[in-house]
């Protein structure tokens, strides 16, 4: 069932790639570029004539725009992208006229065109920075601002608003408009996660096109006419699909705001860290916005091999647990059998080095076959690899815990573990994942397994009940939040959320991607790979490299699927492994 849902989860990578199109040469502001004659439509993949704005982008010239979005169908409604152009002049003999100096004669068009919806033609010259173009931009901005409320001080978009930016670049510093502005509904609950301010909307229709063409939920539209045009959800319908918050990202102004992020922090304070969403196996690339060790939002980061420019609302809002009050923040040791066991009495604050030393001693002394490891497919590749090595050394029975829920057709995968592929490739997970768990439970029941190491999972939720845990001679748990297993652990090692450490995940299609550290770990918590590495060094008495780069590069040498990869070559968007 799992594989079936997964195969229907079509992300951008699976779209058929059209054969390379024939190239044509155009000049952008005097710079010649060769662009393909056609470019695949971002939604359907059908070849469409390459537009001027795409040619300009190829020449590294950004044409200001509002309604155009590289991943949406073209609307051509805002007119911000007006440019001037010229084409080779054709003589009576149907051949291009050549100037006396040997260059092709260009006949300049008499009127401007919108760069986002005008196809390029061979020999075309595009002028994006002429006095006329600048005047047109100024004019467009003046019209856009006529009915705009200019309430930047209370607008969440301030600081990342295209209306602000282009007004500074091309607009007027003063308004000539003295009449009353048209007023429209404010603070409209467009859906459970979106608040709309219609006065700020510039009617670009990006949100409408996104939800109709990308999310496949035709929920939004404009009503009324002229300056009274108003964005609204269809009557009686809520705008509540799982992708609504992407419209907040692509809305160029502050009309659509996220209810979750609303009035919580000004965007210019947010530190941006490249990271990954951990809520399913798709592994959407994200940017974490944090300030002073508090996380305020996730936003999608473009990666055409994984998530294009989007992410689902479920993943986007799943960050609050990182800041939870009851996070595990100290190393804990509970005296085994005998003295005060019922109350879980604790000896005086144990230190990391003491606890890791004791654990290594006990693991070394354990008889082979008496140890089992329950890992988590929420851990990173490096951590799983280190655990697998430890398991091999100790002759331990290992597995990780599957996490299945309904997926959808766009991004959300039915496999809700971010690193199931990694767990499989590093050899920590059984095939199929979870099939060793009954054996581990049975081993404990029969008394054969005396030591259990649990990482990032609650063993009582995967068939190893609390009374079985109590039978163990040694229970070592590492986790982020408290649960029934951590409460019973003899040694509790507080770990880090992904936002607090670095590492890599392998997504469902085998793309190895890295994430960076956004905030500091809480209290005494340490990244799992650090203490796993230390444990492994203690147990095997060999030296190691104590850096994430070193651990990754070593893993790449030892795991066949990762061979040839290095931490550095992963880059920002990852590399597909041979799975």
């Amino acid at each position, binding site marked *: 069932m799992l594989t079936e849902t997964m195969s229907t989860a079509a992300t951008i990578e699976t779209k058929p790639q059209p054969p390379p199109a024939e190239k044509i040469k155009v000049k952008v502001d005097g710079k010649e570029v060769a662009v393909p004659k056609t470019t695949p439509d971002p939604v359907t993949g059908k070849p469409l004539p390459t537009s001027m704005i795409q040619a300009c982008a190829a020449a590294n010239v950004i044409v200001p725009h509002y309604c155009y979005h590289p991943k949406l169908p073209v609307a051509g409604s805002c007119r911000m992208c007006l440019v001037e152009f010229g084409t080779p002049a054709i003589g009576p003999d149907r051949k291009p006229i050549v100037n006396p100096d040997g260059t092709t004669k260009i006949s300049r068009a008499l009127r401007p065109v919108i760069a986002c919806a005008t196809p390029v033609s061979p020999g075309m010259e595009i002028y994006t920075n002429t006095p006329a173009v600048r005047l047109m931009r100024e004019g467009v901005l003046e019209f856009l601002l006529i009915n705009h409320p200019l309430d930047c*001080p*209370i607008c969440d978009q301030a600081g990342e608003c295209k209306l602000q930016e282009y007004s500074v670049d091309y607009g007027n510093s003063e308004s000539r408009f003295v009449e*009353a502005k048209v*007023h*429209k*509904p404010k603070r409209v609950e467009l859906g459970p996660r979106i608040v709309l301010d219609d006065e700020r909307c510039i009617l670009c229709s990006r949100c409408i096109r996104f939800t109709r063409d990308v999310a496949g939920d035709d929920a939004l539209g404009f009503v009324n006419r002229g300056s009274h045009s108003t964005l609204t959800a269809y009557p009686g319908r809520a705008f509540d699909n799982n992708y609504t918050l992407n419209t907040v990202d692509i809305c160029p102004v502050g009309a659509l705001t996220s209810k979750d992020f609303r*009035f*919580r922090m*000004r965007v210019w*304070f947010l530190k941006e860290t490249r990271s990954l969403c951990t809520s399913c196996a798709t592994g959407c690339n994200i940017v974490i916005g944090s300030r002073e060790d508090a996380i305020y939002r996730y936003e999608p980061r473009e990666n055409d091999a994984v998530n294009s420019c989007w992410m689902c609302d479920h993943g986007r809002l799943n960050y609050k647990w990182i800041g939870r009050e009851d996070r595990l923040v100290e190393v804990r040791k509970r005296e085994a059998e005998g003295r005060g066991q019922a109350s879980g009495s604790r000896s005086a604050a144990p230190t990391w080095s003491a606890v890791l030393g004791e654990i290594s001693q006990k693991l070394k002394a354990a008889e082979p076959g008496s140890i089992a490891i329950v890992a988590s497919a929420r851990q990173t590749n490096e951590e799983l690899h280190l655990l697998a090595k430890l398991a091999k050394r100790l002759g331990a029975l290992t597995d990780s815990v599957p996490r299945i829920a309904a997926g959808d057709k766009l991004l959300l995968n039915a496999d809700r573990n971010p690193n199931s592929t990694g767990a499989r490739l590093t050899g920590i997970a059984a095939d199929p994942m979870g099939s060793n768990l009954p054996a581990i439970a049975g081993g404990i029941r029969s008394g054969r397994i005396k030591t259990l190491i649990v990482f990032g999972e609650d063993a009582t939720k995967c068939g190893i009940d609390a009374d079985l845990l109590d039978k163990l001679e040694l229970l070592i748990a590492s986790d982020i939040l408290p649960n029934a297993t951590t409460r019973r652990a003899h040694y509790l090692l507080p770990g880090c959320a992904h936002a607090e450490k670095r590492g890599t995940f392998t997504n469902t299609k085998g793309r190895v991607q890295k994430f960076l550290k956004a905030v500091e770990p809480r209290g005494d918590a340490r990244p799992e790979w650090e203490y796993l590495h230390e444990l492994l060094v203690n147990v095997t008495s060999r030296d190691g490299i104590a850096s994430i780069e070193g651990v990754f590069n070593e893993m790449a040498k030892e795991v066949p699927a990762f061979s040839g990869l290095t931490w550095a070559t992963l880059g920002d968007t990852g590399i597909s492994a041979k799975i």
Partner: protein
Amino acid sequence: MIIKRKKLSLWERLYLPAMLGGFKVTVRHFFKKKVTMQYPEERWVVPEGYRGAPYLVKDQEGRTKCVSCQLCEFVCPPKAIRITPPGPTGVPGAGNVEKAPAEFEINMLRCIFCGFCQEVCPEEAIFLMQDYSLTGTGRDGMIYDKDKLLALGGVHNDQTRKWNRKAEEARAQGVKP
């Protein structure tokens, strides 16, 4: 590098002429009008436009003018300001203003009275007033919170009243502001 010590001239070595010179200045000031002020019993009249401690103000209707845009927090060179935004629910009953700070703190030990916050404020909500001597019995007491800042700042006689004007304009068009 070696710097040669200059030999003093005979005149300089005599010592007395220099002392007399200094004494002359003392005597001159002794008979002049006194400038020393018996602070704190006597107080200085603070001139118009003086930049003392920054305080928050309310408008004529008693609304906190600050909308928590956090520009002053951003611009403040010594990072003396800390604002807690109101969060997703905004401020109930604030009408079309929607926002106000949940908390606003200025650490007066950090503040350098530069006036950037007043300069940058788009809402005319913070002003450098005439207080120049702030005292407290501890560091914590020198962090002024929102209530204290508002009490010290008083009412600003705003002539523009843009939020009222906007609300009236909307109501005239039959739209809820």
